[in-house]
């Protein structure tokens, strides 16, 4: 796996050091709990990015630059943390970086009507290169950082780990907030006038336009939400999931997030299911490697399992519900449709 995921949880590795190796080692309650717990933490980053991207796509704008925005958000958060020692400041900077990138992307795709696939790849490459440049110039060597505190750190007595499995629920507040995005975005899209505008603009923009709904303003809003959350996802990845920044640390997570939007059929609940499935597979594969169940070429091959599972699931799932009809299509008033 990638260095970033290998650094997933130092505590995890320690548990395995004591555990029995092989399959019997995996199927112990403690190991399974740790696997699930780290999957939940990993899922948070995917979830934030993918739920955000689902909002943008519902408005008809595909953003293939999620990964680049995540990298910028991750670096922004990481650097702020190094400077201030305040993880919440780091998260705020991640959000800010994301919204700036959102404005840029909205300007390119909505105002300038640029082709979205190519523009998104441009954003990705910019994020990939610029985050690395800043890192080399401002930091140089990766230093680990300490992220958010768990919500229950002070209330869990030492030494009772095996009994209550606090790993399952003793996450930091940001993890809980990430999962709260699912009902929040569902409400936004289905129950607000802005959400109604987003859905209309993503499907039949000329109809929305004819009723006085501003297609451009709606798409700007949706893109801004999507990119801001992508920046936040990067921040969470650096501050919470790994506690470090290294070059290309997302290793394609942003692209997986875009795939998860399709997997989830553009519904936050579906995106949640996809994020959990993908993270569980990733986390389990990582544990198998640590336990020595898999080694050498087999381990390398199995590292592809999450991606393979996603592709298979995508093929099965995407026949069900159609994408927003106007996805990737720029809007010009009066143009033929």
């Amino acid at each position, binding site marked *: 796996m990638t260095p970033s995921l290998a650094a997933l949880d130092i505590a995890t590795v320690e548990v395995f050091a004591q555990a029995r190796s092989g399959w019997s080692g995996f199927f112990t309650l403690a190991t399974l709990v740790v696997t699930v717990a780290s999957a939940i933490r990993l899922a948070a980053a995917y979830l934030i990015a993918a739920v955000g991207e689902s909002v943008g796509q519902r408005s008809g704008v595909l953003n293939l630059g999620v990964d680049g925005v995540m990298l910028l958000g991750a670096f922004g958060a990481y650097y702020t943390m190094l400077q201030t020692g305040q993880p919440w400041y780091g998260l705020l900077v991640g959000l800010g970086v994301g919204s700036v990138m959102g404005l840029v992307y909205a300007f390119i795709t909505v105002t300038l009507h640029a082709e979205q696939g190519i523009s998104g790849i441009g954003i990705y490459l910019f994020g990939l290169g610029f985050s690395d440049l800043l890192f080399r110039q401002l930091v140089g060597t990766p230093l680990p950082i300490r992220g958010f505190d768990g919500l229950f750190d002070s209330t869990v007595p030492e030494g009772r780990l095996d009994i209550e499995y606090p790993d399952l629920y003793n996450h930091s507040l940001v993890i809980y907030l990430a999962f709260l995005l699912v009902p929040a975005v569902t409400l936004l899209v289905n129950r607000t006038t802005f959400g*109604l505008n987003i859905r209309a603009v993503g499907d039949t923009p000329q*109809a929305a336009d*004819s009723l006085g709904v501003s297609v451009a303003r709606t798409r700007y809003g949706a893109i801004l939400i999507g990119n801001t959350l992508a920046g936040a996802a990067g921040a969470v990845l650096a501050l919470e999931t790994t506690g470090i920044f290294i070059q290309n640390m997302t290793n394609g997570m942003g692209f997986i997030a875009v795939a998860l939007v399709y997997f989830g059929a553009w519904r936050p609940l579906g995106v949640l299911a996809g994020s959990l499935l993908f993270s569980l597979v990733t986390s389990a594969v990582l544990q198998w490697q640590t336990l020595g169940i898999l080694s050498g070429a087999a381990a390398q091959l199995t590292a592809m399992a999450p991606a393979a599972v996603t592709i298979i699931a995508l093929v099965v799932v995407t026949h069900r519900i159609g994408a927003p009809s106007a996805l990737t299509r720029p809007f010009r008033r009066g143009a033929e449709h």
Partner: protein
Amino acid sequence: MSAAPPLLEMRGITKRFPGVLANDAVDFNLEAGEVHTLLGENGAGKSTLMKILYGMYRAEAGEVFLRGQRVVIDSPSAAIEHGIGMIHQHFMLVPPLTVTENVALGLQSSRRPLTDLPTVANRIRELSETYGLRVNPDAPLWQLAVGERQRVEILKALYREATVLVMDEPTAVLTPQEVDELIVVLRRMAADGRGLVFISHKLHEVMAVSDRITVLRDGRVTGETTPANTDRAELARLMVGRPVQMVPDRPDVQPGEPLLEVTDLHVLSDRGDEAVAGMSFGVRAGEILGLAGVSGNGQSELAQAIAGLRPVQEGSVLIDGNDVTGQHPRRVRDAGLSYVPEERMRDGVIGMFSVAENLVLLNQGTEFSRRGFLRLGAMREHCRDLVERFAVKTPHIDVPTSNLSGGNIQKLILARELSAEPKVILAAQPTRGVDVGAAEYIHNRLVAQKAAGCATLLISEDLDEVLALSDRIGVMYEGRMMGVLDRAEATVERLGLWMAGVAGGAA
């Protein structure tokens, strides 16, 4: 004329598109309580004028007055604020949303930022009660039939309290009975003091619904009249600029052997449901079989299946006795089929190809090529001849085909298809979106082929066209043939009921 200023007045509207003067100093006015028809060919500038009124285009010159007050309308929302509603030819509806959501879109909600759909749904029920516009507010729009969708469009305008209501070709998608119902609704809305602009090129509807008629041609007003003071022939003359033969002379040809035989044909749509569900019919030499029906009842799939462009699930297609079921399009053509497709820009021509290239698309491996190289000289001669014989208006044969008007592209396709000397002609919506002059020409050509012994299957949603050309008339509804009548027995009422799926009467 009343002394009070009219509800709406447009003065000296001029709008230019690259190379075209779409509106040339057009004056138009609308009184409260009247239905005022804008009549004209495609490209005459009717839709442009109304899109300017609705703030979708900006005019280069001219002024708009509402009740005598000058107004500037630079966006659809400004138009809505001024009480102008528009029902577009292509419905402006969002299929995944419900009826209520479609109506609520763009409205201020009383519970901002949340939507307030129950209030909207209640008002929709009231309005549908008042105007007889039956519709279920909770239904997702994609489930509705075309007629119901139009009611939703009207409800949207009524909900926004439009006093000026523009309807762009509202009858194009309706059965004759639905047209009658629509006219009742229009009358009721006008009686409430609204002004209605009715855009159409169907003369008998225009005569039935209008209080006043303004005719446009090439961006200019060529006449203003009332139904009482005119007739269809005069209106057609004003539209086209010369007398038009409304119905071609149909030569009396004794039908011969069946050349096209379709038996128990089953075909799937793109979505995988059965679009053609067991169609059987035959067309004989020297005969035109007209197939009427509201579009979307499987006509497109039927045509594609016959032409070899869509797989056949069951049944057979015979051309001149040869079984061509499920054959490659090339084989179907070799058996004697010529095909004038419904989507002429998608299936009929290659837009970026020149006129000449499109004319020889079927001639692969013939006299126009030698060892894989084109014989340009022979090709150009052939094409010049065709362009002349079929009166295709084009500067020369090397212009990209997409630069031609719809009518001329259709003539080009006809030239190519008929020069193949077919036994069977399959013409799908041959005059849809084509100007009256070109339509007249195409009709005469099809009738001439009949005299030459072709079997013609004419698929059209224009009932007037079917009645004017056909020897026998069938109606397709939900993938089935409702029945076939001889031209002499066919009436608009009977065909209209079949188009709505109501069986009955002796067939």
